[in-house]
């Protein structure tokens, strides 16, 4: 058997590899301000969608440009995650200084177009406060948007009353005034921390 364990091996490849690794790691350093949420800079594409609002009108991301936007996927029949998240986000928004109140917009995207008509959506978002836009669309439109932001949703089996569960993302995507994806926050981080991030973003590029 040839088990050749000769020690005489070129150390040059190792040296080249070390240099390559060092060059790679050197490109990784950054010095940005830290947010409470997960920094999405460079990871996701800018805000873009083609949906209908709670008045039944066709809208795009352009219609809400110039503001910091929080996008959340959910459905109005949601028993727990959505109402809790909506409340937290609403509280986070109320915690903003008065001059920034109108600079932050919440986009609630219903991924259950079957049940969530524009009227129903309108009632739902109005319940949680002002400056909340209810959005929905056809399933392919919603799938496209979800795919763009690397998330998904699914429908459970309907029960005897025809009610069914909808699985969806629990995260909130925050876009800056220019529509760049900036942060991913989880509502369970608490309203205060979310407010801090929103202030930093709203003041950062006004």
């Amino acid at each position, binding site marked *: 058997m040839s088990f050749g364990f000769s020690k005489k091996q070129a150390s040059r490849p190792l040296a080249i*590899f070390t240099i390559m690794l060092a060059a790679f790691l050197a490109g990784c350093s950054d010095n940005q301000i830290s947010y409470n949420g997960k920094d999405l800079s460079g990871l996701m*594409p800018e805000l873009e969608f083609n949906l209908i609002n709670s008045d039944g009108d066709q809208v795009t991301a352009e219609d809400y440009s110039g503001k910091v936007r929080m996008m959340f996927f959910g459905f109005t029949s949601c028993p727990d995650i959505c109402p809790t998240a909506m409340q937290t986000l609403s509280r986070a928004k109320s915690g903003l200084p008065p001059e920034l109140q109108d600079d932050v917009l919440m986009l609630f995207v219903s991924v259950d177009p079957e049940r969530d008509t524009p009227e129903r959506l309108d009632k739902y978002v109005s319940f949680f406060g002002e400056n909340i836009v209810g959005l929905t669309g056809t399933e392919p439109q919603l799938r496209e948007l979800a795919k763009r932001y690397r998330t998904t949703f699914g429908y459970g089996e309907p029960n005897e009353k025809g009610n069914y569960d909808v*699985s969806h993302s629990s995260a909130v995507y925050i876009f800056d005034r220019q529509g760049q994806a900036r942060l991913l926050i989880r509502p369970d981080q608490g309203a205060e921390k979310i407010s801090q991030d929103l202030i930093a973003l709203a003041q950062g590029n006004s």
Partner: protein
Amino acid sequence: MSLLDYLLPYDFSPLTVLSYMLVLGFYGVGLLRMPDEDRPGGLRIFAFVLGVMICYGVMQTRFDYYAQYMFFVHRGQHLILHHIGPILIALSNPLPIMRFWYAKMSPGLKNALRPVGWMYQVLQYPLIALILFVGLIYFWLWPSIHFDAMLSRDLYWIMNWSMLLDGLLFWWLVFDPRPPAITSSLGYGRRMLVLAAAGVLQMFLGAWIVFSRDMVYDVYEVCGRAWPIDPDVDQLLGGMLTYIPPAMMSVLGILLILRRAMHQDGKYPKPSRQSKETTQ
């Protein structure tokens, strides 16, 4: 959903489809044109095509959707891209087809490809190959990096392609069909050492995931799972796919190499240093 929906890519990547078409195209044309005596047998052709097709399947069908939204399916995807697919391709020994095309290349092209050859030499240095093979698994499973890779489309593609390419390099180094006694391929002892080390290091990582009480990979929680599943079960299954099958691959690899070494035992005269240099 229709059958077609399952077979079509979830996230269409023209570059990926083109790469696979080129690989299969060159392989097929090479097979047809090469002299009969060099042509691999049916089983080897089958192993090659199967290896290529399963890698394509996990990258460009509905499977990819589940891999993006389920941790354990993602681990299954990498098991195929980093292990099973490349193992089949390496064992099929596509060397005659590569030699056939290499002979057809113009001297200019051969010259232009020389840096690729140098790069290959560096990457196939056993210690570097081992660090790359295991390091890539650790790198992409590092919780914060994994989070980013699952959120960014570009990183996701880089991750999958790097796993596939490195899998091919590593398993080719291990299963290189050229006998080390008369060629420059890696000695059998070293091959087995590399495999054993890779197996043990992967077991550490797999065991860590399996026995983690906390949610290590919460990106699937944040982005929604493909279907409702207990997150702990998802992580446990994913951990087991990182833990057990790769270790089995290492053991299997060692056995195959051992068998090959025993078959070749005494077959080639012990090379003197001079004759070894001439074959390199």
